[in-house]
């Protein structure tokens, strides 16, 4: 998120005003709406946070072609959640374009986001 925020800061306004960064939690029990908002605000107040029931979030992950998150049941107090870490890009024509894996750098974002923006606008 920090790298996305930093990349957006370097892009022109005519691009960034059309960009929506949406974070979807996979741990609704701990990621309350307030907590998500605080966390996202630390990066960029424009970022959007979404949550839901376990069923809704699982359905969303499956629909996006991701392996649903799984909670590590070995510990009850400080449990970990294994989840997908990709960033999925959707353009203005409602098409999913690219899955960006963990490791995508700021230079990649500043290169790709304007292209995705242009593709979405050019689409009929």
């Amino acid at each position: 998120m920090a790298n996305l925020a930093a990349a957006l800061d370097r892009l022109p306004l005519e691009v960034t005003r059309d960009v929506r960064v949406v974070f979807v939690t996979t741990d609704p029990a701990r990621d309350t709406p307030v907590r998500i908002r605080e966390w996202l605000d630390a990066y960029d107040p424009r970022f959007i946070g979404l949550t839901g029931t376990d069923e809704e979030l699982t359905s969303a992950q499956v629909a996006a072609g991701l392996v649903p998150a799984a909670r590590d049941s070995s510990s009850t107090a400080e449990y970990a959640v294994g989840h997908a870490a990709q960033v999925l890009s959707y353009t203005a024509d409602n098409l999913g374009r690219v899955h960006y894996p963990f490791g995508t750098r700021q230079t990649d974002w500043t290169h790709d986001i304007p292209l995705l923006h242009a593709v979405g606008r050019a689409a009929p």
Partner: protein
Amino acid sequence: MSWWCSATGQAWEWTWRAYPGVWLFMLALAGGYLWAVQGSRPVEARRGALLGGSALLLIWVLLDWPVGALGAGYLVSVHALQFLGLAFVAPPLLLAGIPARRWAALAGSTRAAAGFRIVAHPLVAGPAFNLIVLTTHLPSVVDDLMVRELGAFLIDLAWVAGGLLFWWPIVAPVPARAAGPLGKIAYLFAGSLIHTALGIWLLLSRAPVYAVYELAPPIGGRSVLVDQGIAGGVMELGGGVIIIGAIAVLFFRWAGAEDGTPAGAVPGTLPAARVREP
């Protein structure tokens, strides 16, 4: 268990972690240093304990948890601090603490001593140091090596070894050379060019240079670019202060000697440590 501090990608925790490789390395370094200073005259032993002990303590602090772990995988500013300490501070202290008797052994006519004189020649040591500094700061090298314990160890080792090589013609009395203070000042200036350029590069870059620090779990609440700017400042200012300080010491002692003032304990011109080449 990790043997050496490297980038793990795990969230940072202020929980102590053991790095046995660092301890073994320090034991080997301290053992070698104790061997070098053993049997010294009391004055030399005190000097060796003070200078060498300080250098060893500094190296240990820079390599072990938490500094070593932070510099290896989280903050490039700490990585730059490690570089300064391992290449610019600890090596001259180590060299300055070695007694004259040990230097004499390197002034002989053996093949090893002759080979050593070539390696320690300023025209070899200076470019070699700059090459090491440049190579160990290339993004491809850093990103590839810092994620592996052996790779991180090699970078740390290269800095210490490169630092010893760089400071040798300035601090060590063997092999004796007729370069004089002005030659040493020119050598120091030339030796600082690469790290100065690297510092400026880090300061002015508009994007993170190293993937390993850009993608590291966030720590300290500051952005990667701000931390990178601090790293550039550390290299630029810290390295500059050390190099200019060393140049100032050489210059003023040279000026004092020109005035007829006794040179005193000038690094590299220690009367007790001066050894004549065969």
